[in-house]
C-alpha cells in the first residue's frame, strides 16, 4: 500500500477551493482567437457555427476566463463543440452530458458549467437525465442545438423530427409524435427555459446571457439547421426565408408555469424568448446548506478528528 499512498498537502475541503491565481493585474477579455481551438469540422452552413460564435462573444463580453469555464458535451455533430473551444472541456458519451456536468457543478462551485448538445442527445437517450437535472435544479447552462434530425449518424429520425419527415429509419415519413421540448422542460421543473434560433444571433446571445445569469438549471432550446440532412427545416421561423420570428408576448408572465406551457403549445414556428423562470433554490445551495449545518456541529475539528469521533462510537 505504501507504494500507492500519495502525500497530498493539507488544503481544506471541497467547499473551500482556493481561488486559482489572484487577479493581480486586471485581465483583458479573451478574444475570439484566444478562445478558438480546433477548426470546426461542421459542414459549411451548419447552424452550429452560430452557436459557437455566440459562445465566444458571451465569454468575451462577460469577461470569463479560460480556466473558469467548463465546456461539456455528449455525442453528435453539435456535441463536437468542446473541441472548438480553448477551455477545459469534455466530449463525454452520448446522452449523458448532464449528469457529468452535474458532477462538476456540485463539486466545483467556482466554475461556470456550459453544456452543448443535440436533440438526440438531449431528448432521446438523454431524456431522463434532462428531467432529473431539471427537477433538482443543478446550476449550469445547457444549450440544445436542435436540428430535428440525427446529424452525426447521417439522417435517422430524431425525437423532434416532425411527423412525415423522411429519414433513413422512416423511409415513408416519421410516424411517432415528436417530443415538445419546451413542454418537457417546463413539466420537469427546469427553472429557466428559453427558445432561440441560430438565425437570430442577437436574440440568441441575449438568451445565453440571461441563461448564464440565472442561478439554477437554465436551458435554451435553440433551433440549429442541419444543412446536410434537413435543409430548410426552420425556414418558417426565419424572416429572411419568408418565415416569422415572433418573440414571447410582453404580457407573458415568465413565472406562470401554466401560461408557459400554453405558449409551448403554439404550433411551429411558435414563440422565441424566455418561457419560464423560477427563483427556487438550486440543489447546489440546498446541499451547501446541509453542509453548513453539519459543519457547525464539527466546527474547528480536522477531518481525521471528525472520523475519529465516529470511530469512537463504533467501539
Amino acid at each position, binding site marked *: 500500500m505504501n507504494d500507492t499512498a500519495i502525500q497530498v498537502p493539507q488544503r481544506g475541503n471541497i467547499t473551500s477551493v482556493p481561488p*486559482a491565481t489572484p487577479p493581480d493585474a486586471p485581465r483583458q477579455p479573451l478574444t475570439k482567437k484566444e478562445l478558438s481551438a480546433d477548426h470546426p469540422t461542421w459542414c459549411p452552413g451548419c447552424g452550429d457555427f452560430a452557436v459557437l460564435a455566440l459562445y465566444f462573444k458571451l465569454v468575451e463580453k462577460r469577461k470569463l476566463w479560460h480556466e473558469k469555464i467548463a465546456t461539456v458535451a455528449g455525442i453528435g455533430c453539435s456535441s463536437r463543440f468542446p473541441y472548438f473551444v480553448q477551455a477545459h472541456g*469534455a466530449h463525454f458519451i452520448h446522452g449523458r452530458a448532464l449528469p457529468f456536468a452535474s458532477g462538476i457543478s456540485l463539486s466545483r462551485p467556482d466554475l461556470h458549467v456550459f453544456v452543448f448538445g443535440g436533440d438526440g442527445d438531449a431528448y432521446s437517450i438523454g431524456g431522463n437525465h434532462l428531467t432529473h437535472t431539471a427537477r433538482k435544479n443543478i446550476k449550469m447552462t445547457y444549450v440544445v442545438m436542435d436540428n430535428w434530425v440525427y446529424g452525426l449518424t447521417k439522417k435517422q429520425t430524431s425525437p423532434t423530427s416532425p411527423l412525415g419527415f423522411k429519414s433513413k429509419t422512416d423511409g415513408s415519413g416519421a410516424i411517432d409524435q415528436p417530443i415538445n421540448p419546451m413542454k418537457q422542460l417546463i413539466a420537469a421543473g427546469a427553472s429557466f427555459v428559453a427558445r432561440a434560433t441560430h438565425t437570430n444571433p442577437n436574440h440568441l446571445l441575449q438568451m445565453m446571457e440571461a441563461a448564464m445569469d440565472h442561478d439554477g438549471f437554465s436551458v435554451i432550446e435553440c433551433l440549429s439547421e442541419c444543412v446536410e440532412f434537413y435543409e430548410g427545416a426552420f425556414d418558417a421561423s426565419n424572416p429572411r426565408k419568408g418565415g416569422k420570428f415572433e418573440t414571447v408576448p410582453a404580457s407573458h408572465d415568465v413565472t406562470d408555469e401554466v401560461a408557459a406551457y400554453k405558449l409551448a403549445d403554439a404550433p411551429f414556428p411558435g414563440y422565441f424568448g424566455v418561457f419560464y423562470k423560477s427563483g427556487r433554490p438550486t440543489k447546489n445551495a440546498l446541499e451547501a446548506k446541509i*453542509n453548513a449545518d453539519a459543519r457547525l456541529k464539527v466546527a474547528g475539528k480536522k477531518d481525521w478528528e471528525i472520523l475519529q469521533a465516529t*470511530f469512537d462510537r463504533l467501539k
Partner: protein
Amino acid sequence: MSESIVTPPVNGGTAKVSKISEAVIRFAGNSQDGIQAIGGFLARLAGRSEQEVMTFMTIPATISGGPSIFQVRIGSGEVLSAGDEADVLVAFYPHSYEEHIGALRKGGIVLYDSDHVQPNPEWEKQYRHVAVPITSRTVEAIGGTAKDKGKNIFTLGLVAKMFDLNVPKLERLISERFGGKDESVVRSAMSAFHAGYGYSLGEVLETFQFREPARKDRQQVVMTGNEALAYGLIAAGIRFGAAYPITPWSEVMEILRRELPKYGGTFVQCEDEIASACMAIGAGWAGRVAVTGSSGPGISLKGEAIGWAVMAEVPLVVCDIQRGGPATGLPTNVEQSDLNIACYGGHGDSPRVVIAPVGVEDCFYTAIEAVNIARKYSVPVIILSDQSIATRIEAMEEPKLEKLCQDLTPDLSAVADYTPYPLDGTVTPRLAAGTPILSGKYPISTGLEHDEGGHPSGAPKMHLQMTARRRRKLQTLAAQLPQPQVYGPPEGNILLLGWGSTQGPIREAVDRARAAGDSVSALNLRHLNPLPPGLENIFAGFNHVLVVEANDEGIYGYGQLAGILRARFCLPKIIGLNKTDGLTWRVGEILERVKSDVAAGLRRL
C-alpha cells in the same frame, strides 16, 4: 467452544464454570425479532473486550419479513470465519428450531422459546435442550405491546449470564443504542435485559467463561464491511459520490450521504446507475476523484461510462458489492461472480484496475488504496466486495486516522502547459478543471481516440500507441504491487487460492488440514487486475493449485479467477473449486471438496 468443553455436565447437575476460548452462537427467528441487534451488541462487546469476533447473517428476500438468522463467533484467539457449526442455537420458533438444528454441532446446546417450540425427542438425544419461556417472560418484564422488540434484549440477558459477559459494558451499549429515543425505551430495554440475565439457567447449564485474550496494543473498533468501506473512502479523502440504491450496496451510499456533509462533501442519489457513474466521473474530471457503486444489475449499467473514464483517463472508484446470480438473481445472497464483468465488462480494449478486499478491516484500507491508484494512474478502480463482507461485523484494530486521512483538494495553481496523454510513457495525473494553463492551450478529455493533447485522431499509429499507453499504465502498476504472501509453508502439495471474502474460511481450512497432517497452504489475492508479481514462483512450489471461488465452474470446468490464472500461466494444475449456493464457503465444505477432488485424482481439465 467445541474444543474447550471437556464433558457436558449431566442434566440437572450443579452449575459449574467452563473456560472456553471461543463460541459460535446462532440466533434463529424472524426478521422482525431484532436478532441482528443481539448479534450487534455481542459483537460490539467483544470488540470492547479485545476479543475477536465475526458475524454472519441472512436476510429474507421477501418484503414483509420472514425467517432470518444471525450467527456470531467470539473468540480469544484469531477468528477467521463466522464458524461452520454452532455451539449454541437460540431458536425462537418451530421453524427456527427445525431448520437450524442441523447447523448445531452434535452435543451442542439448543436454547429454545418454550412458548412456541415443542422439542423433538429424537433430537433431544443428540443435543442439549434448554427450555426458556422467552416470550412470556419478556411480556412479564416489559408488558405485552413491546414484546416483539423486547425478546431480543431478554435473550441478550440470557446469553450474558450464560457466558458471564461484562454487564456494565453491555448496559452501556444498551443505553448508547437507545439513548436517542424516549427514556421509557431505554428503561424497558434494561428491564428486558435484566429479566433475561436473572432468569435462572443454573439448574441446567454451566456457565462459560472466555479465556483472557492476549492484550492488544491498539483499541478495537467494530463494524460491518460496508461501514468500513464507507469510512475508508472518507479517510482516503473522497468528498463526492453519486449512486442509486440497490441491495447490498445501498448502505454504503446511505452512510456517505449522511457523513460526507460533515467533511464538506456531497453524495447524490441519482435517477439511475448510469447517471451516477457519469456524475462521479464529472467530479473526477473536475479534480475531485469521486466514488460510485452498486451491485449486480447496476454494475452492468455502469459499463459504458467506466469505458469513457478508461479512454479519457479520468480517475474513478467503483464499488461493486457482489450479490448472487445474473439479472436480479439473489439480491441478499453472496457470490463472487462479478470478476469477469469487472475485468472484461467494457466494449473494446478497456483496461481498468480491480481489487477485492478480503475482510471487513481490509475494506477500509482497500478504499484508500483504490483512491490512490485511481488518482496516480488516472484510471477507474473497481472494488469488488461482496454481500458477506458487506453485512458481517468484525472487530478490527483501530486505524491511525491522523496518519491515514488524506486531503485531496485539487491543486489549482497555474501550470505552464499540460499534455494529458503523453506518448513518452509518463503517467499523468489529471489536471483539475479550474487550473490556468499559461500556454493558453487547454486539454479536451474525450472518449474518441485522440492524440497527446486530446484532439480526435483516427490515425492508425495513434490508436496503436494510445491503446498501448492505456495498457502500460496497468503494467506499471502491476510491477509495483506487493508480492502476495503464502499462508502456511511456501511449498507443499496443495495451494488453496482464493480472493475476497473467502480468505477467512480458506485460512481456517489450512489450519485444520495442517493440524491433520496434510500439506496445504493458502494464497488470497487482493489485486485481480492487474495480477501482482511473483505468482509463477509461488505456483511452482505446489503440486496443485485449487482456486476456491463462490461462482460457477463455467462451461469448461473452472471459475472466473481460475480462468484468468490459467490463461496467464497456462498451468493445468490450476483447477477450480466452485459452488453457487448463495452462501459463504464453510471450512468443512472446503476440506471435504479438497479431499474428494484429491481422491478423484485432481483430474486435469
